[in-house]
């Protein structure tokens, strides 16, 4: 994983996550101590009129988006800021494509405008700023 060259407007390498696995949502429900049953109980999903597949936790969708930047930079400790809006849902079986563009590159940081989306539309949009180790040297 080699950091990309720095040119504002340059696209970040797109990464796709999934198909989203309902079993993984159960693990995150425990880690997050999230008792919302729409993440594991299909009856609850239907009762809320949310379709017929369980729904990924928002923080998982955000994790995909951040990881796309981490993977592109090749540096897990580079992330310095994240500002994200959750704009849609991701369901069991979905593929989540994460892509974005470099929007700011100054002496200390690179900022990327990112989007994580499914076939249904965007699920998370936001800006991720990073300071890769290669820039700190």
């Amino acid at each position, binding site marked *: 994983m080699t950091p990309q060259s720095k040119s504002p407007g340059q696209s970040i390498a797109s990464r796709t996550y999934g198909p989203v696995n309902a079993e993984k949502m159960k693990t995150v429900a425990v880690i997050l101590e*999230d008792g919302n049953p729409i993440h594991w109980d299909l009856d609850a999903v239907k009762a809320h009129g949310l379709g017929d597949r369980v729904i990924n936790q928002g*923080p998982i969708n955000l994790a995909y988006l*951040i990881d796309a930047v981490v993977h592109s930079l090749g540096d*897990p*400790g580079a992330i310095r800021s994240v500002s994200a809006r959750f704009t849609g849902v991701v369901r069991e079986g979905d593929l989540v494509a994460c892509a974005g563009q470099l929007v700011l590159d100054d002496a200390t940081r690179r900022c990327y405008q990112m989007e994580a989306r499914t076939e249904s539309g965007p699920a998370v949009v936001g800006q991720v700023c990073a300071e890769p180790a290669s820039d700190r040297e």
Partner: protein
Amino acid sequence: MTHRDSDTRTSADLVGHSFPGGAIAIHGWENWLFCDAVLVDPATYRDPSMLSSLGYERPVVHPVLAFIGALRGAGVKQAEILALANFDDSEGPLFGEQTMMFEEPIFEEVRYEAAGSIVKVEQKTGKAIGPFDAVTFECSLSLSSRRILTCTAMLILPRRSAR
């Protein structure tokens, strides 16, 4: 945790409500499990040779798990925040917005001081979900009183009974 301790509590009462606070270290097995659950190879954050080449002395905690750790370290569960707002997990809360600011990475097995509070409550109406409360909380991790991570998250609490 579904106890609703005050049906008379107003939204304004929640602003400034501090969480108990405390300390937390995020363990390697938690980081591994979280990475696996979010479809990321745990080696991305934990491979010793990669970490060494980048100058990190310990495995890096996934940023989203760092947020979860800050909340847990602050001594509060999501369900308890919902209960403060007279809401229940089963009513379908949603994440609206989230921010994280890192001064440096959060590392496995390092003990951080944690704190947090509710910083904003707004009552809004959305086209899709109708009336809802937007509850924003902040949490942080510090090391020797130096702030390392500051997070905010806005929970959307649909008021289905009000529709």
